[in-house]
């Protein structure tokens, strides 16, 4: 393991604003170590973020950084990548930022298969604004806007990404930072739109309301429920979400389950090749240029 490189942090901005025990810091540290591991130079890396707790990450990272408007991080990043194709662009978003406010940008960036690395820090809640439920709040979990538990079903980000056209999708958790680091390295090496869902913890706005205990308890719970996709494939019977089993039991008892018991599949969920957008764009542009130049030359010859 390599130590976190202090030069990649804006140390004068620390300590950060995140609450004690917030998983955002663990995910950000994993991102920094992953960038160090791949060996990208500081000047070649750009971190783009939207709005929310997780999006504050860009402010603490000593790369080219853009802190943009709510949900629009991917739109800004698309422009940045097209203007400067040499940049390695990491887009840090929260769950609400990426799938609610920026939901359209997310599916269309995936459809284009543009070479961006989207890191979605999923803490299941809008933490910064006081704990409203997001599209990734699991069904039945409480939020300020769902005091009896949300009635809506949550998105599966990676299923959304794969059907929209992304070429790399992985899920890691703040409870397994080493794995998360590996997955971010994998994303940065994929030429195309990569999505890493980093399951994180919000002990204040989400944990407290749902009685999930302290930050440590929440991390341990996530760790316990995480199962690698390889293991899940070999043990077909465990692919059935534990929640179903729990719900069956609960129905009999006539009460809903308080504890999250669903299995979290972690690891590389999908990886497939597809033509990348920026490369195709420049190839087309160069062809057009060559075509024009050729035409002009021909016209010149005719005139002389």
């Amino acid at each position, binding site marked *: 393991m390599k130590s976190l490189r202090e030069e990649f942090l804006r140390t004068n901005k*620390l*300590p*950060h604003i*995140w609450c004690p025990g917030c998983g955002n*810091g*663990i995910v950000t*540290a994993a991102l920094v170590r992953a960038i160090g591991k791949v060996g990208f130079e500081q000047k070649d890396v750009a971190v783009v973020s939207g709005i929310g707790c997780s999006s504050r990450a860009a402010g603490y990272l000593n790369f080219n950084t853009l802190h943009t408007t709510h949900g629009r991080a991917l739109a800004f990043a698309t422009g940045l990548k097209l203007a400067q194709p040499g940049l390695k662009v990491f887009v840090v978003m929260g769950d609400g930022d990426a799938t609610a406010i920026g939901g359209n940008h997310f599916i269309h960036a995936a459809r284009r298969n543009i070479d961006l690395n989207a890191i979605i820090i999923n803490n299941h809640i809008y933490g910064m604004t006081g704990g409203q439920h997001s599209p990734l709040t699991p069904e039945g979990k409480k939020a300020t806007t769902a005091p009896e538990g949300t009635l809506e079903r949550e998105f599966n980000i990676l299923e959304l990404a794969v059907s929209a056209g992304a070429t790399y999708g992985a899920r890691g958790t*703040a409870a397994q930072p080493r794995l998360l*680091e590996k997955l971010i390295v994998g994303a940065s090496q994929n030429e195309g739109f990569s999505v890493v869902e980093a399951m994180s913890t919000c002990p204040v706005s989400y944990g407290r309301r749902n009685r999930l205990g302290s*930050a440590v308890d929440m991390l341990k719970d996530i760790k316990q429920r995480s199962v690698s996709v390889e293991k899940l494939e070999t043990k077909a019977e465990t692919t059935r979400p534990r929640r179903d089993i729990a719900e069956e039991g609960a129905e009999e008892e006539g009460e809903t389950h308080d504890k999250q018991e669903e299995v979290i599949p972690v690891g590389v969920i999908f990886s497939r090749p597809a033509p990348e957008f920026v490369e195709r764009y420049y190839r087309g542009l160069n062809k057009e240029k060559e075509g024009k130049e050729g035409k002009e030359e021909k016209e010149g010859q005719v005139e002389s």
Partner: protein
Amino acid sequence: MPKKNSRSSPPKKRIAELKLNEERCKDCGICVAFCPAKVLGQKETGEVYIKDEEKCTLCGNCEIYCPDFAITVKEAGGNDEI
């Protein structure tokens, strides 16, 4: 600075050098919970401190789990790769 191991002597226990940046630390206690060797401790007031540096096995858990970039662990006198 401890002496480097010579080839003839039996392998010595690697000595860890732990640093806790108190300005950044928010006493969340994650490092204390995830340290397998119980090197770190938490006082009754909640303050996290390095309790027993000698027990450190250089696994690096405290550093990678710290959400506040507050802990670094490396081998004393060695490079930062553990």
